[in-house]
């Protein structure tokens, strides 16, 4: 080996473009090249024979050295591409990549270590790691969002299916009364002439129409409750007579089904704040339910008591009962126990949902009990009991009296010709003189010519709406004192206010109850003179 070559080799060792360090197996630094010393800020004499290799590292790297680096050197004699921070003499970290081999030299084992500065590579890798973590987080979010979407899709699908089933039931139920009605129309047509309806035919007519009306009422009520569009007219009332009345109403259908209804009502009054019409509906629905789900020979009991500050109304039967797992579900909408079209009992399956909604609006609760299938059912309604009001107003019984020979003049405006016609006939029977119009402008011309005492205006008219028509009427000398009655589809407070603002005196929800209309007209008309 020439001196020149030896000098070149020594220079290459010192100035190599990587740091070189030799350490004993105890870690003591045996040699370090100039590059290594420069990168770490030490003079060779400050390292060689003075410091141990692990002392050039922060704690994390030292632990890693003991748990990974050293065992690897011991087991496989080498370690490569280890990324560790080394500490500069001034304390800052220098990210480095290290390779090492352990081998015997001059009879001693030693570790020969090569290092490269890896500042940029480390930054780059950190960015890659951060990007990966971010994309993993996004992937997890996405997965969760998809799961949620799937769940809500499933829920929507189930809801959709329940609604489809409900619509099928609805169509079926509305069609049922239509068949006898259309048959009856056919019978009347075949008989010809002005033959009067027989009592039996009238009963069919009235029963089927009542059935349809009940279905449609239930439907409207349930949607009003679910849209929050129902206002109760609460007033203190004694429940006993009301319950007695409802039970009596249910007797015929119970009898027809071979059932008995018994009432157990206390002698003392049961006072509660109720909307009479709605509570009647509640109890009637429960009784109707018992009738539907009992076999001939069963007994139905309507019982009312006062207990723990509540009025407790119970409807129990010895009917087909309710399976335990269905007890809480039966108050949900569209939740009839048997599939829609397989039943013979009829109904929309919304009766109990309606009961629950109406009872809740009264501040009460309703519960179902049953010992199981075949063991009968018991429905319990609880309403807050109140003290009797100081003076119980005597109920006034409406009298059905016409206005006499000088009957008032009324114009009825409705684009549904049949509805206008029938209301007109009813009003004529009550003694009014009636004319009918089917559009706002026709009605206006008619009224300008005849100046009637009152007008009943539908709001949804083909040309102008009822509010506009009312304003036009109020603008005329002949219309200033006319009694104007609005007929709207919804009975919300906002509808009533709109009617008042447009100049209406009275507001009715369709279908118009002509008895009530007559009553209110008579209380208003004389004052107008």
């Amino acid at each position, binding site marked *: 080996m020439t001196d020149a070559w030896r000098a070149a080799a020594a220079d290459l060792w010192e100035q190599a473009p990587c740091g070189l360090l030799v350490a004993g197996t105890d870690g003591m630094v045996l040699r370090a090249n100039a590059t290594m010393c420069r990168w770490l800020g030490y003079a060779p004499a400050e390292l060689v024979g003075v410091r141990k290799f692990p002392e050039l590292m922060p704690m994390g790297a030292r*632990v890693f050295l003991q748990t990974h680096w050293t065992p690897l050197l011991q087991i496989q004699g080498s370690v490569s591409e280890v990324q560790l921070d080394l500490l500069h003499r001034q304390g800052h970290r220098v990210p480095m990549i290290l390779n090492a081999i352990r081998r015997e030299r001059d009879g001693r084992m030693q570790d020969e270590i090569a290092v490269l500065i890896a500042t940029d590579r480390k930054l780059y890798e950190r960015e890659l790691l951060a990007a990966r973590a971010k994309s993993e987080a996004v992937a997890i979010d996405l997965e969760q969002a998809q799961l949620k979407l799937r769940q809500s899709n499933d829920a929507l699908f189930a809801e959709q299916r329940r609604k489809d089933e409900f619509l099928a039931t609805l169509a079926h139920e509305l069609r049922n009364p239509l068949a006898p009605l259309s048959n009856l129309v056919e019978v009347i047509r075949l008989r010809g002439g002005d033959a009067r309806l027989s009592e039996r035919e009238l009963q069919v007519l009235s029963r089927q129409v009542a059935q349809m009306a009940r279905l449609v009422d239930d439907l409207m009520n349930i949607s009003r409750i679910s849209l929050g569009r129902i206002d109760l007219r609460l007033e203190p009332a004694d429940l006993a007579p009301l319950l007695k009345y409802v039970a009596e109403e249910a007797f015929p259908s119970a009898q027809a089904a071979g059932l008995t209804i018994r009432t157990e009502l206390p002698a003392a009054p049961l006072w509660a704040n109720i909307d009479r019409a709605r509570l009647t509906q509640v109890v009637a629905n429960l009784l109707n339910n018992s009738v539907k789900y009992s076999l001939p020979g069963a007994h139905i009991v309507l019982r009312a008591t006062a207990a723990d500050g509540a009025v407790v109304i119970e409807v129990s039967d010895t009917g087909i009962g309710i399976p335990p797992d269905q007890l809480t579900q039966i108050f949900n909408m569209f939740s009839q126990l048997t599939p829609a079209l397989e039943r013979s009992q009829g109904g929309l399956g919304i009766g109990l949902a309606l009961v629950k909604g109406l009872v809740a609006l009264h501040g009460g609760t309703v519960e179902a009990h049953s010992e199981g299938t075949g063991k009968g059912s018991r429905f319990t309604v609880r309403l807050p009991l109140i003290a009797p009001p100081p003076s119980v107003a005597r109920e006034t019984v409406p009298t059905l009296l016409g206005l006499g020979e000088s009957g008032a003049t009324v114009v009825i405006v409705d684009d549904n010709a049949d509805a206008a016609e029938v209301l007109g006939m009813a009003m004529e029977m009550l003694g009014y003189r009636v004319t009918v119009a089917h559009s706002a402008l026709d009605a206006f011309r008619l009224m300008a010519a005849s100046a009637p005492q009152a007008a009943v205006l539908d709001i949804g008219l083909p040309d102008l709406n009822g509010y506009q028509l009312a304003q036009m009427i109020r603008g005329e000398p002949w219309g200033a004192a006319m009694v104007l009655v609005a007929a709207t589809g919804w009975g919300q407070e906002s509808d009533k206010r709109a009617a008042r603002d447009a100049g209406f005196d009275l507001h009715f929800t369709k279908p118009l109850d002509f008895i009530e209309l007559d009553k209110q007209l008579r209380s208003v008309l004389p004052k107008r003179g």
Partner: protein
Amino acid sequence: MSLQRRNNINIHGAGQATMVLVHGFGCDQSMWRHMVPAFQDSHRIIVFDLVGSGGSDLSAYDQTKYGTLHGYAQDLLEILDHYADGPVVLVAHSVSAMIGLLAANAAPARFAAQIMVGPSACYIDDESYRGGFSRADIEDLLDTMAGNYLGWSSTMAPAIMGAADQPELSVELTNSFCRTDPDIAKHFARVTFLSDHRADLAHCTIPTLVMQCTDDLIAPREVGEFIQRAITGSKLVLIDNTGHCPHLSAPDASIAAMREFLAGSP
């Protein structure tokens, strides 16, 4: 899944008594390369890899189960149920000394004795207790772990599994003994270095040897002395060694200390 595959269980020797060797944080059962030949004439030796390490089935790594050392203790007891008849001699390194302690506390009858190699019951300093580390040190270690894949990538995983049977291949696979999934390694590091089982020491009822290195960064001498004091009747032996793995770097002294202890144990 078979226990054998889950923990890469290997049996050596044919002695009467059974000895179980459990590696610590970092590598795998190859850490016991000097111990197995030394004891295989006197013992039947069970070695295995902790789930998440070495040749274990990485798919069995459940972050919840292995979120505490109890998950590993449960595995150890399962292995004893399947592979050992009578009480065993347990030799456990580093964090596995605490895993062994938890198993021995749960089922003392399964163990004849235990040798804890470089144990620590708590790594982080706590008032008067000196574990040797601050929380910041542990975070620094986790950071170092994150930057070192030691050759890991998902495409390498199958090669690692086969490497143990093919020594000529393992030469090619540098760092293979410490190679593992980086996420698992980081989680295991966190569970290990944040564990505190000081309160469990007093419940130990089996003969115990604490084998402590004279200069060990991870388990300083005070820690070994603390453990020896806390386990009634336990013995402490100091091995003249720098580092955390006396069974690798000072095998002769380690073997001698173990033999002496075992000769004196029932």
